[in-house]
């Protein structure tokens, strides 16, 4: 965190001492009355001011005048007072106070306030984010990201949903960078570990905790102290591990494997999953209480096929410092109609293949060949179905895809039979109920009119 110039105004010497301790990472100055405070504010060198309102016996909220003076001089004014009636809180905000806290929880509140101040100073620059760190030209995706960034400086846990390769880790990193948190961004992919290894990785271990533990190791939870812990693919975590994680999140303490000494860590949690959390809960794969703990604010990132406008900005980004690519119009069309089931990760690999294996302007034939190869590889790895449907199933669920496929088949057969519903029911071996459930609303209406 940057070193700030802070002014603390309080008539209570012990309160000044306590605040000084909480702010010792910064340059702190003190005043005990209105005159001293106004003189110091006049020096124009403070970033943030913490002001008590009643300064001395018989004082009539002179701290309010200090708030006004601070606002005039561009100091971020914060009131920390025991006078916290609704009337006084309102008066302070009317004078321009940015945050009002009742005395008594300074340790946590001071951290929150400074984080918020730093966030307000380092205003989010959308163009900077969307042209390099999270490349997107899609207005809906931009709005989703900017909304999520509003919660960056809070302690609220976040859950990022979206198919694999849609940018969940990149977004988590940006949220951390805009959080103002002093600690590190620590990411872990839960699917990459067995239960035992994940426990050792998250909580750390002591020498001799298990075979091969030749030394002690700090876990990711401790590495994320005062920072952000990003748990990717949290849906793959075992229920047993979820119970242990839940306890660590709730208590902010945990035991490294093989240790009876608890460790403490103040981390903010951001989780991500490509699964639907409600389905995970319904199928017994995710604890409801863990879900409650991790989904403070939920962000849903769309798959690449739903933001085709991003394909070429992403390609430009991937090739910025390498060989630049140009595409024939038919090649562009092929790329835009492709489903990109592996999303941005697949696009990046595709660009690497083209950069290394093609010369000159890229023709449609080269694009189709590479995309076809990519499809073959996907099938070899056990994925089934057409790419577009596969991608849709990942984003909207299998039921939605089955419904869409049924509707398409029924509509096509109806068209082939000139709209004759009886023929379609015979040809597709379906009941009247299934047929009408799949018909568009206007056709259902026309049926009612026919009757």
């Amino acid at each position, binding site marked *: 965190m940057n070193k700030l110039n802070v002014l603390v105004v309080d008539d209570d010497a*012990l309160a000044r001492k306590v605040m000084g301790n909480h702010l010792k990472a910064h340059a702190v100055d003190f005043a005990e009355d209105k005159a001293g405070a106004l003189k110091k504010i006049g020096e124009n060198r403070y970033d943030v001011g913490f002001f008590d309102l009643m300064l001395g016996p*018989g004082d009539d909220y002179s701290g309010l005048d200090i708030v006004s003076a601070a606002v005039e001089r561009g100091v971020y004014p914060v009131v920390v007072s*025991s006078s916290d009636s609704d009337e006084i809180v309102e008066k302070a905000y009317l004078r321009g106070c940015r945050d009002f806290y009742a005395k008594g929880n300074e340790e946590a509140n001071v951290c929150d306030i400074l984080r918020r101040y730093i966030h307000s100073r380092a205003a989010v620059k959308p163009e900077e984010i969307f042209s390099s760190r999270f490349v997107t030209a899609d207005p809906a995706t931009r709005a989703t990201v900017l909304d999520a960034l509003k919660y960056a400086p809070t302690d609220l846990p976040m859950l990022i949903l979206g198919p694999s390769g849609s940018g969940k880790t990149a977004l988590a990193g940006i949220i951390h960078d805009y959080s103002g948190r002093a600690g590190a961004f620590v990411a872990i992919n839960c699917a990459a570990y067995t239960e035992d290894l994940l426990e050792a990785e998250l909580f750390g271990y002591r020498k001799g905790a298990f075979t091969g533990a030749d030394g002690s190791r700090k876990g990711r939870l401790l590495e994320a102290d005062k920072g952000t812990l990003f748990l990717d693919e949290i849906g793959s975590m075992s229920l047993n591990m979820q119970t242990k994680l839940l306890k660590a999140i709730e208590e902010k303490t945990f035991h490294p494997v093989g240790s009876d000494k608890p460790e403490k860590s103040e981390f903010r949690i951001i989780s991500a999953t490509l699964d639907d959390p409600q389905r995970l809960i319904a199928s017994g794969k995710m604890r409801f209480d863990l879900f409650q703990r991790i989904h403070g604010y939920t962000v849903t990132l769309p798959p690449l096929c739903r933001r085709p406008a991003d394909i070429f900005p992403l390609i430009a980004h991937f090739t910025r410092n390498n060989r630049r690519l140009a595409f024939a119009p038919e090649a562009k069309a092929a790329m835009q109609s492709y489903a990109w089931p592996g999303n941005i990760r697949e696009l990046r690999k595709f660009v690497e293949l083209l950069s290394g294996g093609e010369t000159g302007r890229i023709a449609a034939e080269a694009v189709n060949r590479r995309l076809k190869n990519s499809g073959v590889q996907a099938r070899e790895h056990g994925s089934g179905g057409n790419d577009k449907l596969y991608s849709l199933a990942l984003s909207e669920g299998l039921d939605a895809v089955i419904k869409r496929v049924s509707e398409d088949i029924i509509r096509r057969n109806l068209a082939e039979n000139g709209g004759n519903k009886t023929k379609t029911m015979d040809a597709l071996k379906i009941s009247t109920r299934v047929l009408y459930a799949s018909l568009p609303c206007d056709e259902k209406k026309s049926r009612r009119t026919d009757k």
Partner: protein
Amino acid sequence: MTDKAAETKTLHDIKSRCSSLKGAAELFKDCSAGEKKEMLALMKDAARDIAASLTELEKGI
């Protein structure tokens, strides 16, 4: 100042001093020996102020 207003101010003082005492107690164990001495002196002053405010309140009843 009315009795009611005086009572409100006294209660404010008590709340304020108690908060400082609580904050100081939480920090105490992590202080150096020198800081502990300084902190203790301030804490004792705060405790005396609280006792005086309580006496004042008592008188008003």
